[in-house]
């Protein structure tokens, strides 16, 4: 019985379950040399083109970058940088449609090439001279990630601790149409072998197995020629069958081993790399050319020239197609990747990325779109074709039923999404699509379970904390009480130690201090009272006048006094309000006063505001006729240009709170929002923030009003609805400084308001 290694040496190739034989159509492109493209007008370089995280951006908009210059920096192990494919100017770093089935936008660097194609200084390495860490660093810095499929960072894959038996180079390229790797091998076989040698230095495997499908004789021959006399390099031609290029399938083909479920090939002593990746490694190390271009097969019968091109990373797909003479059909499908596993794109401005090996623009006749999905007849053709020996028809059944337990039982996670099942399905069921959806759902469920667990932990921690705090408070109170008792006892008794005496002294002092303070305060309060009384009298004489200035003139007075005065005024006002419900104007002046004093600091303003609010609340409760209040209050608040934003916000909040209360109290107050808004938007010098605040206020008011409206008579409701829209246009138009975004928000708010009101109308 020969050992596995002997069998491999003898050239034995095994087989895997299932597989299909779609028409390969590779002859269209595999005899033409790889074409070079002109540098496109714009390059869109997604910041993340691999599995992992994006690096840190190193350049700014407007910077000039040189060819090969790193645009991002890998700041952790799972990051690989991206590089400028040519010299030019960074136009923007923005969201751009991604080269991903979802077509979701992702951060992308837009580069305007300057046509000079000027290189940064290059530092080639000699792999014989440097250690493997330098090599690994170079591989990471050159932005190399797997170029065959998912784009896993190469420096992680080749940085291994375990012993490696076999380094498998995947040159199978089993998908129909694609010949990018084929052409690369035909043209650059020696570079690929150089790249493999670097990999061998990193991994020191027992043998290098190069798997290649037997429909690429030229490529296989050139590889063999490039290998020459090297020991333990084996080129193994595998029968043409899809998906023999799948990682697990190729491992089975070449070594008869299976990667255990949920494990990595490395666990069975195998590392697999794509030929394209090997080539990129050679370029990065030997010539210091980072991963800035790649061979892409551009094929499909809508193209005049079906060929392989060397495309710069970031080249929009549209440029590729147009360079090949693209004649679109009305319902054109553009597929990135091969016909079996590629994805259709919705926007052809998406760029070529590191994993893009093919762009297809087929005609309808060439690759017929799937016709209508029929019922599964359980014919089992899918199970026969499945390379993972799954039961796709069962998986379909459970996917439709969203039965995640059963899906796990039937090993959905082992599906490699090769599409063989959907290819053979006579009912044209998009099986793979169902599995992807189910997998995404499972991932989501897992994420949610994790989140629920975290939420539970946090909830428990919070409950515990609250409980603990409560307990602590209780204890503290008890302690304090005990202390008091002890102190009382101590003061009753004769002091026994010096410390006790001192303590007692200190206490007495404190106690004696306090009355002093109190006395002062009382005195001051008396004074204020007198002042306020005078002020009240004045006001009673002229009820409608705004006596704001009366208190404000005291600018020389220190702020503290002003605050106290305000407090006094409040107390009085409260009393008075209770006594005489006709006093309408009071709170407004109080606020005006508060905000008029420019040297008063923000805190004071807040305090005053709080006072005013409290007052307003009381008053509102007391006198439901007070209609005009909040409006002037706001006007005042926002009229003052030197009041800083914070103050404004506070005042606004107050006003809002007031409005809320008032609205609750007086259902007749219909006119409010309109003047309030007018006021807020009239102030031209008001900054954007204030505008937003005002909008929020208006909204709060509107919300309350809407709630009120429900309870009101129909006629009144109508009046309200009419007014709300009439107030709308003023908001966005009036303040010229207000930026567009705010305006939009305000508009949206107004709209929402109107909608709410309409909804609440019981018509």
């Amino acid at each position, binding site marked *: 019985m020969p050992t596995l290694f002997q069998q491999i040496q003898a050239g034995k190739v095994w087989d895997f379950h299932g597989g299909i034989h779609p028409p390969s159509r590779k002859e269209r492109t595999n005899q033409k040399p790889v074409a070079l493209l002109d540098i496109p007008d714009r390059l869109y370089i997604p910041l993340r083109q691999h599995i992992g995280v994006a690096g840190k951006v190193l350049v700014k908009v407007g910077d000039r970058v040189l060819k090969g210059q790193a645009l991002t920096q890998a700041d952790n192990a799972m990051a690989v940088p991206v590089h400028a494919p040519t010299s030019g100017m960074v136009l923007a770093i923005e969201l751009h449609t991604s080269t991903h089935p979802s077509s979701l936008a992702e951060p992308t660097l837009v580069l305007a090439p300057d046509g000079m194609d000027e290189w940064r200084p290059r530092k080639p390495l000699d792999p014989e001279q440097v250690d493997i860490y330098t090599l690994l660093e170079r591989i990471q810095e050159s932005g190399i990630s797997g170029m065959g499929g998912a784009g896993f960072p190469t420096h992680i894959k080749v940085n291994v601790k375990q012993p490696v038996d076999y380094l498998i180079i995947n040159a199978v390229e089993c998908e129909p149409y694609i010949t990018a790797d084929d052409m690369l091998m035909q043209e650059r076989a020696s570079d690929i072998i150089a790249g493999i040698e670097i990999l061998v230095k990193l991994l020191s495997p027992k043998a290098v197995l190069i798997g290649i499908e037997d429909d690429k004789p030229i490529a296989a021959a050139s590889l063999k020629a490039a290998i020459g006399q090297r020991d333990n390099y084996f080129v193994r031609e595998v029968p043409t069958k899809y998906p023999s290029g799948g990682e697990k399938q190729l491992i089975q083909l070449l070594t008869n081993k299976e990667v255990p479920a949920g494990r990595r090939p490395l666990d069975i002593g195998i590392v697999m790399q794509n030929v394209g990746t090997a080539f990129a490694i050679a370029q990065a190390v030997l010539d210091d050319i980072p991963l800035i271009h790649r061979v892409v097969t551009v094929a499909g019968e809508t193209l005049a020239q079906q060929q392989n091109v060397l495309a710069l990373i970031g080249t929009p797909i549209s440029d590729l197609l147009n360079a090949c003479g693209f004649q679109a059909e009305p319902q054109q499908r553009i597929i990135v990747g091969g016909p*079996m596993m590629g994805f259709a794109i919705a926007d052809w401005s998406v760029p070529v990325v590191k994993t893009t090996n093919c762009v297809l623009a087929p005609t309808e006749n060439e690759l017929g779109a799937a016709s209508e999905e029929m019922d599964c007849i359980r014919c089992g053709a899918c199970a026969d074709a499945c390379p993972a020996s799954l039961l796709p028809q*069962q998986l379909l059944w459970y996917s439709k039923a969203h039965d995640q337990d059963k899906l796990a039982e039937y090993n959905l996670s082992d599906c490699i999404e090769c599409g063989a099942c959907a290819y053979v399905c006579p009912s044209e069921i998009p099986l793979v699509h169902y599995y992807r959806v189910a997998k995404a759902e499972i991932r989501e469920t897992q994420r949610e379970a994790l989140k629920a667990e975290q939420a539970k932990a946090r909830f428990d921690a919070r409950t515990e904390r609250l409980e603990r705090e409560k307990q602590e408070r209780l204890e503290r109170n008890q302690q304090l009480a005990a202390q008091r008792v002890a102190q009382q006892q101590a003061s009753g008794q004769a002091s026994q130690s010096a410390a006790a005496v001192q303590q007692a002294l200190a206490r007495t002092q404190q106690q004696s201090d306090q009355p002093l303070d109190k006395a002062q305060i009382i005195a001051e309060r008396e004074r204020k009272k007198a002042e306020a009384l005078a002020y009240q009298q004045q006001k009673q004489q002229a009820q409608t006048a705004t006596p704001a200035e009366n208190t404000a003139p005291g600018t020389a007075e220190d702020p503290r006094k002003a605050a106290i005065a305000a407090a006094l005024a409040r107390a009085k006002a409260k009393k008075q309000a209770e006594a005489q419900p006709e006093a309408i104007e009071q709170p407004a002046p109080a606020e005006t006063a508060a905000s008029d004093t420019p040297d008063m600091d923000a805190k004071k303003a807040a305090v005053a505001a709080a006072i005013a609010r409290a007052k307003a609340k009381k008053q509102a409760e007391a006198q439901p006729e007070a209609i005009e209040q909040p409006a002037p209050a706001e006007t005042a608040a926002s009229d003052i240009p030197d009041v800083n934003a914070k103050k404004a916000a506070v005042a606004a909040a107050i006003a809002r709170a007031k409005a809320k209360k008032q609205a609750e109290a007086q259902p007749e107050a219909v006119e409010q929002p309109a003047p309030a808004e007018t006021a807020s938007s009239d102030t031209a010098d008001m900054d954007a923030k204030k505008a937003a605040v005002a909008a929020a206020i208006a909204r709060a008011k509107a919300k309350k009003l809407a709630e009120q409206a429900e309870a009101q008579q129909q006629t009144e409701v109508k009046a309200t609805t009419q007014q709300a829209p009439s107030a709308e246009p003023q908001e966005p138009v009036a303040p010229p400084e207000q930026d567009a975004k705010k305006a939009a928000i305000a508009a949206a708010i107004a709209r929402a308001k109107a909608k709410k009101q309409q909804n609440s109308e019981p018509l």
Partner: protein
Amino acid sequence: MSFKIASSPHQHIQKTTAQLMKLVAVAAVPGIAVQAYFFGYGVLIQLLLAIITALLCEAAVLALRGKKVKVKLLDHSALVTALLLAVAIPSYAPWWLVVIGTAFAIIVVKQLYGGLGNNLFNPAMAAYVLLLVSFPLPMTSWLPAAPLQQQSLGPADAVCTIFTNFSCSGYSISQLRQDADGISMATPLDTLKTDLSQGYTTEESMKKPVFGWLSGEGWFWVNLAYLAGGLFLLQQKVIQWRIPVAVLGSLFGFSFIAWLISPDTNASPLFQLFSGATMLAAFFIATDPVSASTTEKGRLVFGALIGGLAFVIRSYGGYPDAFAFAVMLANMTVPLIDYYTQPRTYGHKSKGAR
């Protein structure tokens, strides 16, 4: 120009369900032709009746279920069901028999279970069983093969017999079945069963003219024709080899053992293979994908079960032919078979779902 979004794969093998069903129908043509030659034009009339009934019922139920009638009708699955039932019942059975059977097959067995792909039982066989237990006499009234018939029946006779129970010249079915001696003739399987129960040996029984060469006058050729059709289906990759091979293999195996043990009371394995509905069942009925097992091993088990059951029922059961019962019983076990014959998934040690 606008872009079209589709899910991968973007390429499909151009063999749809409708095409598969059509191929099955085409493959049955030689069998039907030979059957019509030996057992009269009645087969064709039954076929016509069954197809019309099936399509009408299918269309009606699909419309009631709010499905796209035209698309679903064109999958030709109702056609195949009708075809299988029509060739399974006696050629000159009264018209209502096939109508009731087809309607039951389509409405109850297929659509009430959820339509194509969801039925547990093979519709044609379930309907056949219903008819057999409900109307045993007309369902077993096979005419002897053409060379043995006393009266030769033309197309007009076939129509008359099916719709009025009497041929144009006024013979009833039982009269038509009589041989020269006025004894009503049964099918070879039936005859053998009766004779064996009366104490004759197989060899003695086999001397009767109804047996003709090997497995019954006419029946051998009918089976051979279906075998040819089945091989065509295999070659077209419409069906896989496992089920038919397992059915025939297990039937052959069981009957061979029985025959070795007691050649006097058991028919030869070859007789078993080429009599009754053996080939039709092995290639056309048991391979119905919907109600058969879907795993590779499961198909072998499923086929073997059918063959074994058919042998047991043929030898020891009350009914002469057994495939309808065998297929239905095996259908019932399919979920179990499927569960326990799951293939070992790549990268997993244990077999099947755990």
